């Protein structure tokens, strides 16, 4: 009985917060647009009895998904999202790994403080932080003013409203998700392993590549997924920091919903996005599983 409840709680949670919303979105994606409230047909109506239900199901079709293939905007947006997410994940890894490494090397009494510093930005609103990046990156922003003042550049750089600004925004926002799992892996690393590697003839750098990196692999993988997955569907950052040429699926989705009021197509976009995300999510979970097995 106890066991049943323990299992039932997470499943109920998944059912209410994930599966039911997903079924609703899936249903909308199979519907047609209409000038009504809500802006699609058919709607589920139980008063019609069995025949009504039958009519409801026969009105559902894959038309919206076909539509997505007819316009190259959509697959280009998916592709460009994947590209931006991959690139910013790699950037976050290159920035985050040294930070995590430094934290793990720091003296014990410093570590909680460093950890706080990594988490601290989360205590301010995400939107405010993105807006402040606009203030930094704009043509009259702090960065350009500083570079002009030092004389490195004579003309202000155009960064805001380009893809560069999007990379900066994503890396900045999701960096803690990269740092924390890597730090957790590095912190567990037994220092005597590095000594053993050196004893067996490795230089410090070789020991880093042959021991430290492989042993933090799970942290790296976890961090990469934790950055990649939200970055792929990111909407706020590309729309605030990106320009008109920045193509990301999150933005397309938003426009379909709110500018075109085409809920069915928007839902189809969302369903496909979810399909794309399911692959890395499953890979991520498998990685976690493997790690847990290895630790036993």
């Amino acid at each position, binding site marked *: 009985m106890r066991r049943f409840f323990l299992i039932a709680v997470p499943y109920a949670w998944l059912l209410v917060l994930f599966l039911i919303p997903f079924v609703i979105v899936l249903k909308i994606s199979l519907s047609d647009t209409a000038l009504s409230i809500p802006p699609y047909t058919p709607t589920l109506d139980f008063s019609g009895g069995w025949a009504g239900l039958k009519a409801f199901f026969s009105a559902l079709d894959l038309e919206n998904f076909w539509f997505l293939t007819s316009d190259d905007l959509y697959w280009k947006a998916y592709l460009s999202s994947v590209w931006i997410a991959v690139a910013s994940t790699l950037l976050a890894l290159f920035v985050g790994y040294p930070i995590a490494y430094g934290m793990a090397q720091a003296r014990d009494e410093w570590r909680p403080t460093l950890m706080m510093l990594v988490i601290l930005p989360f205590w301010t609103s995400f939107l405010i932080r993105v807006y402040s990046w606009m203030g930094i990156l704009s043509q009259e922003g702090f960065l350009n003013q500083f570079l002009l003042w030092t004389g490195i550049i004579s003309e202000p750089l155009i960064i805001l409203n380009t893809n560069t600004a999007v990379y900066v925004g994503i890396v900045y926002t999701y960096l803690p998700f990269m740092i924390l799992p890597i730090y957790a892996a590095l912190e567990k690393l037994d220092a005597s392993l590095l*000594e*053993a590697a050196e004893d067996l003839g490795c230089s410090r750098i070789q020991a880093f590549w042959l021991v430290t990196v492989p042993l933090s692999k799970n942290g790296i993988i976890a961090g990469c997924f934790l950055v990649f997955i939200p970055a792929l569907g990111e909407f706020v950052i590309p729309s605030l920091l990106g320009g008109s040429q920045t193509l990301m699926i999150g933005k397309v989705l938003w426009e379909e919903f709110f500018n075109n009021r085409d809920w069915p197509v928007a839902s189809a976009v969302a369903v496909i996005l979810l399909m794309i995300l399911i692959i890395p999510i499953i890979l991520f979970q498998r990685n976690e599983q493997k790690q847990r097995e290895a630790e036993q």
Partner: protein
Amino acid sequence: MTEPVFAPWDDPNEKPLIEFKNVTKRFGDFTAIDDLTLDIYEREFFALLGPSGCGKTTMMRMLAGFETITEGTILLSGKNIARVPPNRRAVNMMFQSYALFPHLTVWDNIAFGLKREKLPKDQIEARVQEMLKLTRLEKFSKRKPHQISGGQRQRVALARSLAKAPKLLLLDEPLGALDKKLRQDTQFELMDIQEKTGTTFVIVTHDQEEAMTVASRVAVMDEGRLIQVATPAGIYEMPNTVYVADFIGDVNIIEGHGTKTGDGYDVTFAEGQPALHAKTDAQLGEAARCYLAIRPEKVTISAERPDGAVNVVQGTIHDIAYLGNLSTYHVELPTGQILKAQAANTRRLSRRSFTWEDKVWLSWTDTAAVVLER
């Protein structure tokens, strides 16, 4: 033709492989190694023995290059090693915690050091195979360290440190987790390897029997200092302090007052007990307070007073420890002191000659006891 005795430490022309010269190591204000001077010679099997925390691992780590030396110098083949990084020393260490690479298989763990030397593949292969065979790990070569038992892990660590055939091999409690049989086999294996390769071994152990079996010399340490360095027989037969006598093997310690007579000392230890005589070259100081250390197996136990024995005391059997091949009798003297005597069990249990509360005589010769000042 007699085989020359291996005793380079007695030969003034011999150059030591390792020289500790007044080495001190401090962690903060804690002194882990205290002004230690020691020579270890090539082809030696040198055992470090001592209680937990006395600085054995610290000594090893200084040799391997993981601890800096606070004061003094360590020479390896006559060269100061203070500035040589660990990966440039012809020294390999087997870590007390094994330090196996968890992401590599047993095979790759053993091959790790060989691969760093950029040896050809088939040579690496052959060497790893040899090591696997030696440590009887062939069946486990594809497993990861977390998939094998503690004793198997220890063998992997041993194989990994042996693989590079270093000039100096440091073994920090290499056999602690093995069962007795395997431990003895591995001990002989180690001695065999040592003979074949001529590698110098420094081994830390908590097991005195192990130290006695494998070592050419044994160093007994306490609180960062060397108390005695000698051959196993020397340590056992001629300990230089009560501490060493007590640390190695079983011993009776009798505290008394010595007076010089003839070729040794007469030691009076209690009212109404005869003075005990021991031959010695040692000279006691003014106070003449001294200790006699007598190994239980050198004490003869008998029902009748033995004729012509130099040292005889009487007592009652307080306890008997049956050890299979031997029995140790704990005999209580009239003074309340307990002396231990060991005798071989040549007869069956039911026909043993002594039992509890028997009155017995203990006797030993004048060379059995060692006179110690402290």
